[in-house]
């Protein structure tokens, strides 16, 4: 075990875990922030997506010891204007069905809009195809991203 201090959502969280622990479990079990989900554990589904220094990152494939002082944002701390627009569009279109994958979907969608203000369908597909939804809400996900982009135009 080793002590790490993680910067999550603007707050310092001390966690005492094995250095090889995936960041996902340091966030969930160490910091007690359970909005970030475990889906596959092998970077194939996107449920564990967080932002590290603004970049979309699968928290299951990154050891906690490799994070350092970089800034982590989880679904609980998503407060950028793009993040708020995505969450508003998600609610307006009623995107989730079972909801399990949705925190990862929202994190990836926000990272997309933070870098691309007017994504095409192709841009959305390339950015979001690593986030799997067993309920197949993909059509609503794409519509919500376009709606969020439109709401940010003015």
């Amino acid at each position: 075990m080793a002590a790490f201090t993680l910067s999550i959502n603007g707050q310092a969280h001390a966690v005492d875990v094995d250095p090889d622990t995936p960041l996902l479990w340091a966030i969930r079990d160490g910091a007690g922030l359970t909005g970030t989900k475990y889906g596959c554990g092998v970077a194939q589904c996107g449920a564990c997506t967080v932002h590290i220094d603004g970049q979309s990152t699968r928290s299951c494939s990154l050891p906690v010891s490799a994070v350092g002082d970089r800034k982590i944002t989880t679904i609980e701390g998503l407060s950028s204007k793009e993040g708020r627009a995505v969450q508003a569009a998600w609610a307006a279109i009623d995107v989730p069905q079972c909801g399990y994958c949705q925190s990862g979907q929202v994190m990836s969608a926000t990272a997309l809009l933070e870098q691309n203000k007017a994504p095409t369908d192709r841009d959305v597909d390339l950015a979001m195809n690593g986030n799997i939804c067993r309920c197949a809400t993909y059509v609503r996900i794409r519509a919500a991203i376009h709606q969020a982009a439109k709401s940010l135009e003015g």
Partner: protein
Amino acid sequence: MSRVRQAVLAGFAGVLVASLVAVAGPLLPGEADAASRAADSTQLRPVSDFAKIRDKQKRAIALFEEAGKVITSPRCMNCHPAGDRPTQTDAMRPHQPLVVRGEHGLGPPSGLACTTCHHQANFDPAGVPGNPKWALAPLEMAWQGKTLGQICVQIKDRTRNGDKDMAALVHHMAEDELVGWGWHPGEGRTPAPGTQKQFGALIKAWAEAGAACPKG
């Protein structure tokens, strides 16, 4: 093909090779080792094995064909795709999830970047490989779908090899960290044959012998 069937066929192939070596008659000291290395796809023959080839061009070609065991291994080929999408596993299937090269081989700017999942080092608990230089080889360095001879011509071509002269090419093969990942690919992946040092020595000897390429 099932693993059991593969194992049976591999065993049969091993017996066949052993039988052929046996019926070929007694070998001189050292020849048995060389024959064994030649038959083992996980190893590389040392440069000294090629010294007896007097013809310089033939020696260069033989050296490159040996180095080609590395170049054509899935660990190298997977990130030298002919299209926009890398492949993965020893079967070289399309990368899952769908990723594309983007402008610099790192994924599209607002899309799924390599670094979304791949980090500074292999992370075996998640089975995800990593390296500080993780990226696709540029399109002009595509190897998939090409013969070893075509790859050989391509890697000597400064318009398609990152403007490397022969010394820089040898250094790249022998020393580059991402090339070196091929021999340390993490749990569950078959490493490239031999070692990077042996591979570098073969490429250096090939260059010194005139860098001739296999035909075809």
